[in-house]
């Protein structure tokens, strides 16, 4: 049972991180559909760094940096050149798929050491919960810290209020004197960092070797999770665990030989995403104040 819950948690962490980052990006009014691409580049960057430098911790840093790099490309085009965010985001994923395929070719067939678990003194000795909550790896702790941080940040810090203001009405934010483009750059890069680390988690913990397109749609599911969570950070945890659970359930099903074809089981996370979106969207369309009002709209500043 412990082991099962641990794998569910591990499966949900890339989703959790990527969705949290995208939530911050979207709160600033930027819709970055390139999460899948940023995760892929995080994964390949992490693998490369670990093979080159040895320690898995370098993988985390490299993953984050690769994500930021991808987010910067997205930012230059959408924020500075005011391109269509939907199309640019798609372009980013397509670009990153190609780039990581190229960069990952020399890594094929090599495996990396897994990210070590860190036991928290005393707490890890608590029966059941200690095993699940306090014997995790660094990224798992980090992702919980990020969620707690951004919950506080968005609600109580002035910078957080400014971020929400920029996503709510960029023209007003400009009038009040905030640098809209700069703030969006930061928010998008934060999203890139989270997606990159989330992507890094896949080779560092889940499957320790490179394969083309190894994120398998997790970036898109993360995007759906933001909608599912109605842009409220803690709900992402719930959503990510549900998706982690569904993914593991299909693996368990395959392992135990349930009389359902494996492909049909593998569809579950994708179908669940559609169902989740459907349930939530019906509600959101009636109360659309949860969606950042300038989401996806390019900002042109007259000077």
């Amino acid at each position, binding site marked *: 049972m412990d082991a099962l819950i641990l794998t569910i948690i591990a499966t949900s962490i890339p989703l959790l991180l990527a969705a949290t980052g995208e939530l911050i990006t979207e709160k600033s009014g930027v819709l970055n559909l390139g999460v899948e691409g940023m995760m892929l580049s995080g994964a390949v960057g992490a693998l490369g760094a670990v093979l080159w430098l040895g320690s898995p911790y370098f993988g985390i840093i490299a993953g984050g940096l690769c994500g930021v790099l991808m987010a910067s490309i997205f930012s230059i085009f959408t924020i500075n050149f005011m391109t269509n965010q939907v199309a640019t985001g798609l372009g980013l994923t397509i670009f990153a798929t190609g780039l990581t395929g190229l960069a990952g070719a020399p890594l094929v067939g090599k495996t990396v050491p897994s990210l070590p678990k860190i036991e928290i003194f005393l707490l890890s000795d608590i029966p059941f919960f200690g095993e699940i909550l306090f014997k995790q790896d660094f990224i798992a702790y980090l992702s919980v810290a990020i969620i707690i941080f951004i919950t506080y940040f968005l609600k109580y810090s*002035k910078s957080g*209020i400014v971020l*929400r*203001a920029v996503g709510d009405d960029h023209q007003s934010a400009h009038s009040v*004197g905030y640098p809209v483009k700069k703030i969006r750059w930061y928010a998008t890069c934060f999203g890139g960092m989270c997606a990159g680390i989330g992507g890094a988690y896949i080779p560092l913990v889940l499957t320790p070797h490179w394969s083309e397109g190894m994120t398998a749609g997790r970036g898109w599911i993360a995007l759906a999770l933001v909608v599912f969570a109605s842009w409220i950070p803690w709900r992402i945890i719930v959503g990510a665990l549900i998706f982690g659970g569904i993914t593991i359930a299909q693996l368990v099903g395959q392992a135990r030989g349930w009389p359902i074809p494996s492909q049909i089981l593998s569809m579950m996370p994708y179908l669940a995403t559609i169902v989740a979106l459907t349930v939530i969207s019906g509600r959101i369309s009636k*109360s*659309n*104040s949860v969606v950042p*009002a300038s989401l996806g709209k390019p900002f042109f500043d007259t*000077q």
Partner: protein
Amino acid sequence: MAIKKEPEILLKASKINKSFGNFIANKDIDISIAKGEIHALLGENGAGKSTLVKIFYGVLKPDTGTIEINNSEVSISSPNSARKNGVGMVFQHFSLFPALTVAENILIALDKKIKFKDLILEISKLSKEWELFVDPLKRVSELSVGEQQRVEIIRCLMQNPKLLIMDEPTSVLTPQEISNLFKILKRLASSGCSILYISHKLEEIIELADQVTILKSGESIATINAKKTNTKFLAETMVGKEITDLKKTNSMNVTKDIALELKDLNKAKETDFGISLKNINLKVNYGEILGVAGIAGNGQVELMEILSGETQCEKENHILLETRPIGFKNIAERRLLGIETIPEERTLHATVPNFTIAENTFLTYFFKYPKANNIISNLLNNPQNSKIESENIIKDNDVRCPEANPLANQLSGGNLQKFILGRSLANDPKVAIFSQPTWGVDIGAATSIRQKLLNLSNSGKAVILISQDLEEIFELSDKICVINDGALSKILPVAQITAEDVGLLMGGKLETSNEMEST
């Protein structure tokens, strides 16, 4: 109280120039504002008023020119530096964030650090002191327009400004709210704060201002002592020619034949930000103009959409054209029946900006072309069919175009509005419904548009005029009603209602009755 002293100059701007591409918004403007003075900035739409004050507030950067505050030159590079120099501004369309609370909205425009608790205290202190009551924990999206303006004013007052800029503050207020605002502004001025007040309403300026600077086509053409002038002189200086009065002869032609009727119409809002229409009853006769007054955001948009057919009625007999129920007809079908609507937004709603004039004509004419027995030409029903009609509209309505068949966004606001009006009126409607027809157009065009409305009712058509401009409503309407929070007041003939009453109705202070006036 304030002690009289020699006027000391607070802000002095010299040779301000600003252009956008080929368009010159400000040209060599000089202006100086004394301490404790209420200085009005008067001019038509597009005269460069907003550009100038945005430069003072650091939102725009001047191409050339200098600004001195207290006799020392300053560079106002951003709103933050404007605030540091003691300049505060209340924007025409506000700079508020609907999804944030009042306190959050105020906090993010504060440059000093403050604890949230202290902030709330300070807001309540200020709002008591200046009688600007708002709940700091409410979301701005839940506030009325008047309340939103209070938030903007409090936000400025938090900074103890030396100069308060107000961009067209009264366009969204009821007469009562306006007189309250004027009291506050006068009190502020007497406490030593200068006020730069932008308006195109002449009475207001005479009532409120000490000095008035008139802008025309980006240039400052005169600065006059406002206490020693009159509205006629101001108007003619502003426009640069004598103003022709409207020929109002309409009330003779009002008939007793009902053209359009709304009966107990209810419509629940579709989004959080919308307004539900509540039990609306309305009648308009042939030959009359019915004015619907009200503050923005009280259901005008929703009423307009239900009248036009863009949104569906809940019941077919909620709307009657003469006696025929048309509640389920869509906008194209209603056009065929002779109901034309002119929406408030000229671009992206009434027209597609990057489509040609012929395509924009086709937009509301497409159903005219299909012919029986001609499958091929019906299959290929396209904007080419509207070519001649669009040329006629341009010719008949004196629409000035930079080239033949231009894109809609190549036309100026006034010319685009002339085209939109011409496109509707060429269909010879029985009922015409206008929303804010003269919003943002210059006085010349506004006069000609208003004349068209009068002519329309003179020729026996029914006209509904939804406008926030009370002057316009009183000038044109035969009957008046007020929309407030999605409910419509009793409809009264213009002779039986005063501007004060309308103001009270607009603010929701008078009971609104849904009974129909039986005339």
